[in-house]
């Protein structure tokens, strides 16, 4: 069904279609960034395609890729033919693709989300602000180099002593998966203290490192030793009995 869209785009744009694929039946067309808005406009306006349903616009970060850091991915559908197509383009860090918000008004917020999460600005967008996060936020969290545990609180975390309340849970108390080492997160916000990686790198304790867990472990080991001793003693007595 969507192969028709790919064929039509190939016929119309020829060399300017850089790459096509149909993995798992999802047809995809990759174009250069300069053709991005023009191609999108064509898919909407062309009488054969009529891609009038904007599904989503998002981005993918490939920090290790040297040619262009981001993939910009557009998914559209035609409510007339039922065809779906995915458009993709490569965007370098700092490049500004043309906005699609004039073509599909739904692209307005999606492009704001891409700006918010990946830091890709769109040329000609009417309202290029963050949409999910707050203006005070520094950086773009879905970039792979954003520290996974870097929080940027709007309200400074409470100074517990002055309010005469329990300090926040320590990491060894209660549900360990949910305990965030928020003190170190605030102190060295760039440090990696996510549960899995933090434990690996020795920056975060697990529940089994806690004093309570160690006490329990020691008690269990003492009991086991006592039991082993008792078993050995009973063996010895039975051996002595058989010797007699």
């Amino acid at each position: 069904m969507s192969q028709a869209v790919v064929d039509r785009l190939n016929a119309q744009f020829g060399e300017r279609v850089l790459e096509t694929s149909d993995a798992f039946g999802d047809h995809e067309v990759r174009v250069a960034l300069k053709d991005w808005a023009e191609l999108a406009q064509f898919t909407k306006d062309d009488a054969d395609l009529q891609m009038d349903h904007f599904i989503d616009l998002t981005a993918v970060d490939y920090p290790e890729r040297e040619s262009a850091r981001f993939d910009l991915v557009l998914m559209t559908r035609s409510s007339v033919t039922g065809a779906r197509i995915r458009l993709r383009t490569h965007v370098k860090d700092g490049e500004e693709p043309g906005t699609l918000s004039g073509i599909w008004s739904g692209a307005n917020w999606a492009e704001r989300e891409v700006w918010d999460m990946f830091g890709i600005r769109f040329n000609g967008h009417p309202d290029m602000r963050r949409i999910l996060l707050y203006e005070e936020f520094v950086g773009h969290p879905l970039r792979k180099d954003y520290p996974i545990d870097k929080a940027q609180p709007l309200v400074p975390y409470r100074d517990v002593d002055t309010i005469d309340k329990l300090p926040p849970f320590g990491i060894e108390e209660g549900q360990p998966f949910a305990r965030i080492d928020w003190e170190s997160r605030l102190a060295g916000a760039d440090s990696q203290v996510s549960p899995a990686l933090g434990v690996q790198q020795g920056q975060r304790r697990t529940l089994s490192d806690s004093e309570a867990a160690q006490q329990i472990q020691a008690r269990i080991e003492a009991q086991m030793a006592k039991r082993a001793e008792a078993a050995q003693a009973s063996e010895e007595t039975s051996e002595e009995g058989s010797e007699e």
Partner: protein
Amino acid sequence: MGQLKVIDGGGEVAVTTRLSDLLQWARKWSLFQYPFVTACCGMEFMATAAPRYDIARFGAEAPRFSPRQSDVLWVVGTISQRQGPAVRRIWEQMADPKWVIAFGTCASCGGFYDNYTTIPGVDKVIPVDVYIPGCPPRPEAVLDALMLLQDKIQANDRKPVVVPPRLVPERAPGRTGEGDS
């Protein structure tokens, strides 16, 4: 109530107590609530507030949609960093004496949201009196929290508490054999 003294005057009975005790008694039975509902825990909150669990037994059935008229702030659900200023401001607008209940795991400690966008427990922003664990907690746990809060109010105890788990008698440790499946 704390110190009660019953004076029996032959057919007419008078009871005396301390004024502070009487005040706390009045407070604990007329908790006007401000529900700050942000997430799925809200469904359990609605269940608790609905007639089946009859929260009116505790004098806590009246929601007030202005923080200035309410006594208990229910923080029900995940609090994102962006909501921090809002919940802080609501808490500041409430008149003393005021109490805060963290409803569910997310409000208590952030739950499984260990990322840039979620406050790891609303107690980082406002002081919390009662924590209700659960994802989401059952209405019974919520009622337990309410009774716990009442006890704390009566005792004038501002130390935060976590609602303890209830043991189902037939599942209690040590019990084996018939009846268990």
